[in-house]
């Protein structure tokens, strides 16, 4: 058990295994995302209330879903950083935070553009839009703090504390923001219920969510590898990888 744990924390082991998985993640992600998007754009039936504008859902929901789950993943990694000081965990947080920021921005942007034909306005101070905006601020804070601290180790630990403080706050923020009367429709996917949409709509949505998940996995691998390479420059295995091209 502990041996596995140590192995999991070893950058070299991760580098090897991620190199093997990366092409599959990228290919699978692109395939799923593309099929979901094309299905959603061209073949899914029109929504009887919102018309064709609802087709934004096939990227809005994946980005919004990913934006939130990336933060949760970062929080789990931050806990691991603080408790076990595992190297890979803080590499993950650092590598993934900008991706989370961009996904949150995309969720907000697509939400705003969707709002224009549906609600007649670009922006509404509605609960879910506002809490996504706050999530964007949280990501921004994490990145800014990471950039501001020069020492790598204390940057990682300070960021971990901030991410954990943020994750304690997220439910509070969500709850307090939802306190207003909301115009936003309830969540599309609930784990406990069957989706209320017809299958021709939610199957492509599920495909694009899964696709974006895989692409995120690929992005995380690439960015973590970059970070690992620059941190472990002095080690023999990195030298071997750089000069001979394999781990």
């Amino acid at each position, binding site marked *: 058990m502990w041996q596995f744990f140590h192995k999991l924390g070893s950058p070299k082991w991760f580098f090897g295994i991620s190199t093997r998985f990366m092409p599959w993640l990228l290919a699978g992600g692109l395939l799923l995302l593309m099929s979901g998007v094309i299905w959603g754009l061209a073949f899914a039936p029109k929504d009887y209330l919102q018309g064709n504008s609802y*087709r934004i859902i096939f990227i809005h929901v994946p980005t919004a879903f990913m934006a939130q789950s990336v933060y949760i993943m970062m929080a789990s990694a931050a806990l691991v950083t603080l408790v076990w000081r595992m190297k890979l965990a803080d590499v993950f947080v650092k590598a993934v935070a900008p991706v989370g920021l961009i996904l949150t921005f995309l969720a907000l942007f697509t939400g705003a553009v969707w709002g224009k034909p549906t609600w007649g306005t670009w922006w509404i101070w509605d609960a879910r839009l506002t809490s996504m905006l706050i999530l964007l601020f949280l990501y921004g804070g994490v990145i800014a703090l990471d950039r501001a601290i020069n020492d790598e180790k204390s940057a990682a630990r300070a960021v971990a504390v901030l991410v954990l403080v943020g994750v304690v706050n997220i439910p509070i923020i969500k709850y307090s923001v939802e306190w207003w009367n909301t115009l936003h429709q309830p969540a599309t996917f609930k784990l406990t219920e069957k989706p209320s949409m017809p299958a021709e709509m939610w199957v492509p949505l599920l495909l694009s969510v899964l696709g974006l998940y895989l692409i995120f996995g690929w992005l995380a691998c690439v960015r973590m590898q970059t970070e690992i390479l620059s941190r472990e*420059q002095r080690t023999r295995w990195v030298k071997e990888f750089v*000069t001979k091209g394999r781990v």
Partner: protein
Amino acid sequence: MAFDSFSALIVMEGHGPYVWACYAVFFVLMALMMIASVRSRSATIESCRRGYELQAEKSTVAAASATSASFARVNVSQD
């Protein structure tokens, strides 16, 4: 196909600009992020390689100078 023709797909009964703008921004940003990540990875590898080459050069120079240095005399200014 939910649309009769390709132009109907583009127009989407007036909602086309919104939908296509969203998809354009999404794909452009995702592509930029993916390209930037890959490029920074290869840039890191490249800078590592240059570092090793520099190191190797330095060590050969150091080795060469070390052999000659044993006979060299260091002049220290006395004034």
